[in-house]
Every structure is written in C-alpha cells, then in structure tokens.
C-alpha cells in the first residue's frame, strides 16, 4: 500500500479511534471516582456559574499574584497560532469538511504562514525555557518533551508541503498531490499527535475545562478566591 494511501486510510482511522476513545477513557477515569458531598453550609448558591466563571477568569493571571509573564505571553502566542493553523487554513478546513462534514470560511494563506512562524518560534522558545529554567527542568519528564515533539512535527512537515497558494480551498483533495510522500508524512505526524494526545499533558485541551470548572464551583460555594 502506498504511504499516502496508508496515511489517509487505516492510519487516520486508527489514530482517530485512539484519540476519541483514549480521551473518553481518561475523562471517564476522572468522573468514575466518587464525588465528595460537601455537607457544610454554602456561602453562595451559584457554584455552577462559578465554575463557568473560573473557565474564563483563569485565562488571565490573578490580580496581585505575579506569574511568569513572558512565558505566559509566549504560551498565548503559540496557542492562538496553533488554533489558526489547525482551523483557519484552507486545506485543513477542507480536510475537516471531508471527514466531519463541517466547513467554514478560511483565512488567507498569509495568516497561516505568519501563525506557523509564531508557533515554531514560540515552541522553540518554550523548549529552551523548559531546558534552562530550574523549576521547569525539575518538573519536566518524558511527557513534556514528547508532547513538544508531536506538536512541532506537524508544523515542520506542513511547512515542507507549502509549494503553492491554497486560498481558496480546493473542494476535493487532489487525486495525486505533487508531493505525495511529503503529504503522507504530514498526515502521519498529525496522526502521531492524535495518538499521543489522550495519554499525555496535551489532554489539557479538554482537562482545562474540567479542572477550572471544578475549582470554580467548589471555591465559589465557599466564597473563596478563584
């Protein structure tokens, strides 16, 4: 089986199944634990709303508490850039539309090119900081470095594919791309990301909502600071 056919067929299907089931299993592992029933008299009754508030409030550093500002700005930059690349680039929207039936208007290619540069520089900066900062070096393990690698790989393999403008998006995937091997490698790198995401720290894409909501709800009940 040619590599591209493998990447578009069984590899994509397998990685998508692992991604969905793996993430579902991880969340199930949390929700299957017993919930603590708090018998104390609540100070506030809007704990569910507090959970929602926390999801948004935690996007900004808390007032009066110093955080690692430059690191936070960099994280914001590459998270936004990655979102633009994944969901605003014409071929990626076409890919999503072909598989999920959902489509939307892409942004011009130039936006993605700038976003890619920001993401690559941001990720390299994050890695350098992780390797040189005492706190981050201590906290880091295989998960941190492998998660970095599987995030960076689709960016680099995608860059190698850019040979012509993709705006507006093609309605169907070209039957025979000019560089099928490179496209296959790009797809395989995405599939590696999908395979790893449920098992490592990249699952924070989903866990961020659960964790923030939990704290927001529990602390709002007490009237405590979020």
């Amino acid at each position, binding site marked *: 089986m040619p590599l591209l056919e493998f990447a578009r067929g069984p590899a994509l299907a397998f990685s998508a199944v692992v991604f969905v089931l793996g993430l579902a299993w991880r969340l199930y592992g949390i929700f299957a634990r017993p919930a*603590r029933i708090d018998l104390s*008299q609540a100070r506030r009754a809007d704990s569910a709303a507090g959970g929602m508030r926390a999801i948004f409030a*935690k996007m900004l550093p808390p007032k*009066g508490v110093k955080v690692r500002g430059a690191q936070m700005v960099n994280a914001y930059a590459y998270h936004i850039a990655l979102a633009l690349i994944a969901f605003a680039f014409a071929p990626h929207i076409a890919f999503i539309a072909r598989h999920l039936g959902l489509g939307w208007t892409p942004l011009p290619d130039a936006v993605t090119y700038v976003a890619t540069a920001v993401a690559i520089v941001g990720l390299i900066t994050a890695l350098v900081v992780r390797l040189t900062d005492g706190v981050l070096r201590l906290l880091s393990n295989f998960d941190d470095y492998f998660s970095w690698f599987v995030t960076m790989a689709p960016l680099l393999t995608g860059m190698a594919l850019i040979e012509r403008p993709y705006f507006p998006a093609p309605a169907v995937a070209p039957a025979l791309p000019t560089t099928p091997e490179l496209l296959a490698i790009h797809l395989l790198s995405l599939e590696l990301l999908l395979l790893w995401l449920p098992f490592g720290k990249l*699952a*924070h894409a989903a866990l961020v909502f659960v964790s923030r909501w939990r704290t927001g709800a529990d602390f709002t009940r007490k009237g405590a600071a979020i």
Partner: protein
Amino acid sequence: MSEIDARHPIDFDSPRFTIKKPAVRHDQQGDAPDAERAQRAIGAFMRDMTRSAATYMESCIHCGHCAEACHFYVTSGDPQFTPIWKLEPFKQAYQREAGPFGWLYRKFNLKKNVTAEELRRWQELLYDSCTMCGRCTLACPMGIDIAGLVGQARHGMFAAGLVPHELHAVAERAAREGSPLGATPKVLKERIEWLADEHEVDIALDRPRADIIVTLSSIEIMKYPASLVALAKILNRMGASWTIRSDGYEATNFGLFSGNLDWQREMSLRVIRAAIACGAKTLVLPECGHAYGAMRWQGANMYGKPLPFEVLHISEFLAAAARAGRLKLKPMQGSVTFHDPCQVSRRGGATSAPREILNSLGADLKEMPPAGDANWCCGGGGGVVTLHRADEHRHRAFEIKMRQVEASGAERLATSCSNCRLTFDDGQAHYKWDRKMESLLELVAEHLAPA
C-alpha cells in the same frame, strides 16, 4: 498550669510556642518496615481520591507558575519548593495505582512504586515548606487546588508514620489532652478565673444553655489571654447569651495539620457536641485561620451531616453585629494595615469581614501590596511555625511580610489569627523588627462605644 509533658516540654519562654527543640529528632513514628510505610501512605492518599482530586492529578501542565506564588520558593529560589513538586510521589502513585491508564503504567513499569525513602525526602516539602496557604492555587492556570492536595498527601504521610517530630508531638498532645499547648480544661478554668478577677469582667464558662458558643485557640489561652477578656467585654456589652464550654473550647485542630483524619474528626466533634449540648444557634470561631477551615468548611463533613448551628469566624461575627447595630464602636486613631489569614480570607471566603469592622472603627486602612485574597502568607501556617528545623525557611519567607507591611505605610498592624500573630512575634524577635502585630478582636474591644 498543667503538668508539662516530660517527653515533649513546651517552650513558653520563646516568642513562638511549640515544644522545645528536640535534642534528637524522631521524624518517623512506629516501627513498620519501609515497604509497609509506603503502602500505607499510598493507601491513605488513594482513599481520599475523589473526582476533584483525580481531576487535579490529571491536569498539571508543568508550567511552573505556582512557584512564583509560593513564599518558600520566591525567597529561596530553590526549585524543589515549587508547590506542585511537593506532590510528586503522590502524583506518581496516583498515575500508577488509580489513574485511567494505571494498568499501562504498571504493565510497562512506566511509573515506579513510591518508596518510604522517597517519602522521607518529601517530608520537608509537605510539612516544613508548605503552609497550605493556597496562593499557588490562585496562580495555577489549570485551577489545581495544590494546597488541598498537600493536605491529602499529609493523610498519607501520617498513615506511613512519617510526620515531623514537633508536629506529631503537639498533635498527639492535642488528641490526648484536648489542647496542643497544654491548655487543658483545668488550665482554661484557672485562666478564666484569673482573667475575670484581674480585669473585672464576667467570662461565661459552662453555662448549660446559650445562644452563642465561643471557642478559643490554645495560643490565645496561653499566650494572648487578653483576647479572652476582649471577647467577654464585647459579648457582655452586646448583651449576648453566650458561653465558653470546657467540654468543647479548643478550636485549633492539629489532627488536620498532622494528617490524622481520626484526630481531626475527634477534635471537631468535641466542639460540635458541646455546641449541641448548650443549644447554641451560633458557634463563633476564634482568631485562628485553620480553625475556620476545619470547622466552617470541614466540620459538617466530620460530623456526617449538616451542623445544627451557624459557624462564624469572630471577624464575621463582629462585622455582622456592627452591621446590625448590636455592636457600637468609637473611632480609632491612626492608620492600620490588615494581614489576611489565608484560611479565613483567600481560602475561607471571609475577606470582607475584617475590612467591614475596620470601616466601622473609622480606621484609616492602608492595604499591603498585595492584600486580601492575594495576600502573602505569614509563613507559619499549616503547622510550620511549630517546626524548629523549618525556622530558616519560615524566617526567609517572613521577609516578604516585613516588606509588605513597610510598603503599606501604616502605623499599626492587625490580623485575626493568633497563629499569624505568633509567627509575627517570632519574626519580629528574629529580625529585631520594631513592629508589633495586634489582634483585630482586641482593637474592637479597645474601641467599644460607651454604654
């Protein structure tokens, strides 16, 4: 004065009350073999593994923001004091034993079994260098309640018999005598008699029925008895129906600090039973931070059902009384800054109460930068102030407090936690600092409007 426990004599001569510095430290209890200690620690930790705790265990992104919020890291620059790192063996155990992919971790030995040796190394991180102040929780972009998890990890450490010498000694004394500092019922009665006589004030003790049951901190009874007088003066002036009960007066809870849930429950139940026995509608907690968390937020859970009375910190009680016009105050002179006890303000939700009182006093409140929910801990909470070997960490952390106080420009300092006061007294003595922490309760008593 009660007989001083010969094994662990309390040092009443130093600014900080704890047991005298042990000549030989015994930082582990019992004689269980190491493998059993590790197993007990993990077992106890996992027994508390609720949905919330599991969420937090899964969510750390290793960003390090929590380090910047921790006074022990900020003042030492030592990465091992990064709050989330203090939980590392327990994260490791969770992933191996209880996480959704635990079977994978065990099958391929991706996370190794936690050893007793590892836990011994972590004792300093979980006890000496964490006051469970929760500032790290505020900083965490994922919202992980690191302070709560440290409390849970301490349950594991207690089960393993790996509690620091002093903390175990005072907690054991509290479980045995009813007070960590020797303030037994007999001592309490003697002190109350003396204070009532000396200050010509009626201090209600052991009344069979009362609307309000007032609880105390051993630190107040032994070091700051003027607080008892202040309390009595205020409540008497308000014409309140109140009492202290010798069968349930001690609000500090060293079961909570040390990590012994049974002791924590027993200490809470003494107070709860006393409140029920006298038919109290309101239980007033003393100027003590962790007593608030232990009773206001954990008391009902220890009791197993909702408490049949309202629980208020003394600052909440006074603020409500002032608001309702039952407490009339005359204005105070000069400026004051307020040190927020972490467990009452940031983690307890009662940040506004002391400010309301200071407003009623017409005080010129000069807030520390930062104040309120983001305030820095004094460094002595979580039982840290009892540990001699933690003195260096604690004194370093206290430098932040001194800078905050000086930056406020206030003439006077006040707080509503006797443990914070104790820590300030010790810090003042250590640095020969010319500032004195005062009690908000005593400030109120000094400014009661003429009847």
